[in-house]
């Protein structure tokens, strides 16, 4: 491996790429379109009425029911009773990705009628300002009306009879757009090196360009490394654009940490090598395209790109387990959403091992010259 030659070859890759509008479109513009499209579709559906999961511990009192139905009529929120006790509500909300909840404590009606203060508990997800703001506003409005009507004399001396206490839902709550960001970053880590390397490796061989390169000191490993470096850089740019767009345009809540970087490096490394391998085992450019598609398409849809793998039926989840892209996306999910670094590290280890194997196979399989 010689840095000067890799750099020289890198310049050729960079120039060939930036002078090719179609390649640039697929690696930079297309991901933006994807995020924009899914973001618009799903942020639109989530901005309709918000469901508040409530637990009414003041068993069936008329006042508590009147409070809930007043809240239900605000048109901002819809009330649904949670099938758990007030003590388990926070955990249940977190586990079911519901960002807001409400508990009416025991004795609410009695306290209300004798003027004793009762605090309602509103569960919110502090990351989800939109839902928290909506539910707190709606609850506050109803609370204010109840306070005005409360029996209290003289009115000015009264402390409010109903108060609000906020608490956080048990674990971070994610919306579709949050899952979508790592999924779509994974999608572009897969597609842009795969399609291009399958095409290049088979066509360069057919056109004799590999034979010409074989007459220079450039080695196959150096050639492949220059492409890996290029696609890693391209992935940084496209992931940056997609994450930025997700956060600022669609309010996605993802954690940006250095733990993301290894996936943005190993992911392209793996798929550059895999693309090269697919192109090299195929006898012609046409069959290379077919092999490339057979390898790429299952990963495009079954690795958690557009839908979280956790929502798959068990049979499909088992399929995802053997798709390398699943480990890229799952790892990024663990880093960006669940802060589960141990699992991210396991995903990464699997990817590193797979990448080294595929890289070596690709270097061995692809031929500069006719053997």
């Amino acid at each position, binding site marked *: 491996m010689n840095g000067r030659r890799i*750099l020289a070859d890198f*310049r050729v890759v960079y120039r060939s790429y930036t002078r090719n509008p179609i390649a640039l479109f697929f690696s930079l513009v297309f991901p933006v379109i994807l995020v924009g499209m899914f973001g618009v579709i799903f942020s639109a559906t989530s901005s309709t009425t918000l469901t508040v999961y409530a637990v009414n511990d003041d068993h069936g009192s008329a006042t508590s029911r009147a409070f809930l139905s007043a809240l239900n009529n605000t048109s901002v929120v819809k009330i649904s009773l949670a099938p758990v006790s007030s003590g388990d509500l926070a955990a249940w909300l977190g586990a079911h990705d519901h960002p807001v909840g409400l508990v009416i404590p025991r004795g609410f009606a009695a306290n209300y009628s004798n003027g004793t203060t009762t605090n309602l508990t509103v569960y919110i997800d502090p990351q989800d300002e939109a839902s928290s703001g909506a539910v707190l506003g709606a609850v506050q409005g109803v609370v204010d009306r109840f306070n005005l009507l409360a029996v209290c004399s003289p009115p000015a001396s009264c402390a409010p009879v109903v108060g609000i206490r906020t608490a956080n839902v048990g674990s971070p709550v994610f919306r579709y757009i949050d899952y979508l960001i790592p999924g779509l970053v994974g999608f572009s880590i897969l597609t842009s090196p795969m399609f291009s390397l399958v095409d290049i490796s088979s066509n360069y061989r057919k*056109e004799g360009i590999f034979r*010409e390169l074989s007459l220079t*000191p450039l080695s196959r490993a150096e050639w492949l490394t220059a492409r890996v470096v290029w696609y890693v850089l391209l992935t940084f740019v496209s992931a940056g654009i997609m994450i930025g767009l997700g956060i600022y345009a669609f309010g996605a809540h993802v954690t940006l940490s250095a733990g993301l970087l290894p996936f943005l490096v190993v992911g392209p490394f793996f798929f550059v090598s895999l693309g090269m391998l697919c192109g090299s085992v195929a006898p012609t450019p046409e069959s290379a395209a077919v092999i490339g598609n057979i390898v790429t398409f299952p990963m495009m849809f079954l690795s958690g790109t557009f839908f979280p793998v956790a929502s798959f039926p068990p049979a499909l989840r088992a399929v995802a387990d053997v798709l390398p892209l699943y480990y890229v996306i799952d790892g990024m999910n663990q880093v960006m959403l669940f802060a589960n670094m141990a699992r991210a590290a396991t995903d990464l280890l699997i990817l590193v091992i797979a990448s080294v194997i595929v890289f070596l196979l690709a270097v061995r399989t692809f031929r500069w010259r006719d053997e």
Partner: protein
Amino acid sequence: MAEAVEVSDLVKVYGELRAVDGIDVRVATGTVFAFLGPNGAGKTTTVEILEGLRRATSGTVRVLGLDPWRDGERLHRRIGVIPQDFRFFEKITAREAIEYYRELFGSRVDAGELLARVELLDKADARFDTLSGGQKQKLGLALALTNEPEVCFLDEPTTGLDPHARRAIWSVVRSLRAEGRTVFLTTHYLEEAELLADRVAVINRGRIIAAGTPREIIDAHGRPTRLKVRADASLAPLLKERLGLDARAANGQVEVDLRDHKDALRVLEAIEGSGLPWDALATETDTLEDVFVRLVGRMDEGTLSSEAPS
């Protein structure tokens, strides 16, 4: 090392086909060698074995004393190659291509100077996919020279070029020879071989059917110089009888084979003395092309042994 290229009993088999069928070639250092042959004769196959791009079925091959297949990496730093049908990265300009090769080889050539040498400086900043066929070929030649090679392999470097571009490439070949480099050239153009080459080998169906300097080949395989006049057919038997020379009549012309230049005077005297009317006198000598066409034709008819003297 006196021999830049040494090939003995080289055979290359593709399935049933013996594309190269036991050839011997020697090219002395600092000379231009032309490998002539019709389409499919086995030229590219041979050249690519010499470059280390294909593997010989049997026989020994040495280029600069190295085995091209096994010592390719060392050899490639010392040779330059233009493949037949040269292709390159489409979006890369001529200058960038040279700079790329320069970095790969770690050489110090100046891209501008090299492009000027192949008369491509005006297209230095044009992308490969916008170059014409001849311009691509010139870039291929420039790339082959970026590492200042000791031996250059040029596989049909002038095929499809206009006469001007062809001359530009010829002059580069001559300058390479003047610098003491060895050139291994394949071509269909006999004129090119005659003009440039110190030695020529003619290959057909994988076998070398003639080899030597162009002069030697013409002398060995060419027909005698002929004198032609437009005259009555009855002149032919008359000349045959009087001078004992081979004379034929065809298409209103009479043709006499000459053994040496003195025969010409004797033939003219005899014609004049015959009293028959004549005009349009000309002499004809075989070119390498005539020899080539006759040799290849005779081999294809099966009347020429492939064990031709070399």
